[in-house]
């Protein structure tokens, strides 16, 4: 039976859904404990429902990967964990790879499942699903964002203090400033319905079309990298490789070509509806309903119809 340590990434006092999903998956196949790293973060451990190692230290306040490698490596060695799991994020990927090199442990990423000894990872743009294994003593895995449900463990939360011994090189990078984007409207990570806009909207003002439709459907608005870079919409709404990964029940793509950068951020959506005037847009290759047409004509009508139906 696997004895797993799960990295509990947190932001603004909340443990991230991806970390909780990894913890729930680990608990379903063996013993699963969490590790919480930061400064003044003890209260965040409340309600996790299992043993939580707490590394609470001022030097750990900035979300930088290398000091976290030190903390996790010591825990794995001292407590004999054979598996370390992460939910995908920029920070988690850096910690996982650093830890792999430190412990000579294999790292598999993009996992959507784990059975205690093997994992499963769709690869090459989901054209093949690979069963992956480890030959090392310690297994390290990163789950794809949105792949797992964050079910509650329901056990007793037992917070234990972890020793913090940091390497010189691990602490040589320092955080100068953190500028966190203001969230506008409902969070796209938690939304059941997302209406996303791309270049095909034509101009920034036309995001109103996406906003109106999202409102009618009770969902949130997302944007592609291209329009965020162009300043049409805030970064907090960006979906894709360099933005958020989402997996709503319904994803409506307006004027989005469906470049691989965007696809990786939304391909886990249950149902994808795309409206694009270019019949050759790649998005149609992975849409459940593809509509070739002018979104400026279709979307206002669609919004009206949805409103009428729901009222």
């Amino acid at each position, binding site marked *: 039976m696997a004895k797993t340590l799960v990295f509990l990434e947190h932001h603004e006092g909340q443990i991230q859904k991806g970390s909780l999903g990894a913890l729930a998956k680990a608990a379903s196949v063996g013993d699963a404990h969490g590790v919480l790293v930061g400064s003044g973060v003890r209260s965040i451990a409340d309600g996790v429902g299992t043993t939580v190692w707490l590394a609470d230290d001022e030097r750990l306040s900035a*979300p930088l990967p290398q000091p976290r490698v030190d903390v996790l490596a010591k825990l794995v060695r001292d407590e004999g964990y054979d598996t370390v799991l992460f939910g995908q994020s920029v920070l988690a990927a*850096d910690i*996982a790879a650093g830890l792999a090199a430190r412990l000579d*442990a294999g790292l598999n990423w993009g996992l959507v499942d784990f059975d205690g000894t093997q994992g499963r990872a769709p690869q090459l743009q989901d054209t093949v699903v690979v069963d992956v*294994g480890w030959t090392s003593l310690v297994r390290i895995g990163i789950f794809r964002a949105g792949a797992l449900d964050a079910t509650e463990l329901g056990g007793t939360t037992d917070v234990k203090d972890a020793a913090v011994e940091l390497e010189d090189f691990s602490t040589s*990078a320092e*955080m100068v400033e953190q500028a966190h984007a203001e969230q506008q409207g409902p969070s796209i990570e938690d939304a059941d319905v997302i209406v996303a806009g791309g270049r095909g909207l034509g101009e920034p003002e036309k995001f109103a079309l996406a906003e109106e439709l999202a409102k009618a459907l009770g969902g949130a608005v997302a944007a592609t990298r291209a329009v965020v870079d162009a300043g049409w919409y805030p970064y907090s709404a960006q979906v894709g490789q360099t933005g958020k990964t989402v997996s709503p029940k319904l994803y409506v793509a307006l004027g989005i070509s469906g470049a691989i950068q965007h696809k990786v951020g939304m391909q886990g959506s249950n149902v994808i509806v795309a409206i694009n005037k270019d019949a050759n847009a790649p998005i149609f290759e992975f849409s459940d309903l*593809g509509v070739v047409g002018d979104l400026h004509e279709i979307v206002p009508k669609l919004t009206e119809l949805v409103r009428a139906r729901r009222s």
Partner: protein
Amino acid sequence: MKIAVCVKAVPDAAAGRRIDPATNRLDRSVELAISDFDTYAVEEALKLKEAAGDGEVVIVSMGPERAMDALRKALAMGADRAVLVTDAALEGSDLLGTAKALAGALEQESPDLVLFGQQSADGGGASLWAAVGERLRCPIVSQASELTVEGGSLTGKRQTEFGYDTIRAPLPAIVAVSDAINTPRYPSLKGIMGAKKKPQATLSAADVGGATEPATTVVGLNPPPARGEARRIEDDGSAAEQIVEFLAEKRLI
């Protein structure tokens, strides 16, 4: 300032990428090209060198012998020379083996700054730099959408799920740049002509500390789950109604 850029020669997207069921490895027998994401790192290195007025840009890679053809694109863009770690013993290396080989090659170069692209274009990995940083025991900054180097330190702007972090680190350091950082230049005709004459060295596994057995395995390959039947309609004026019908059918409204 000496800058090393780690790049990967990947199967050309146009040639198609597939896993060879006989070896469970990515089929690299097709034409190889430098990963698009890595061209941003090459461009950033060239810009830093140009701004400093002097320095050297060295391309460092691991791959089959013919990967050198792909590395020549970076030389054509303006990099000064290329070092390719190539050895049959390194075939099938995973993250650990690749990190060890690259770290071995980088130790011999001892650059002030090492740049990576934000992810590999084939395997989708986005963390190799962190394993290399661990081996070289130097600071890392990933997903940098801005980078400045001044005196003995660098400042990078890291783009995360939550916004932007400004991180400062002393040199030598490793930075993985995002594709938001610049627009890579196209090689000029003169650059392409001159690339062949630039120094291109190879290193064996023994030169970089030996090969490492992979710590990860591919156990089996499965076809992707079917996406259900995709529907396609051309708007004839009734698209909005048809979308509503579809959503109702799926119980989404």
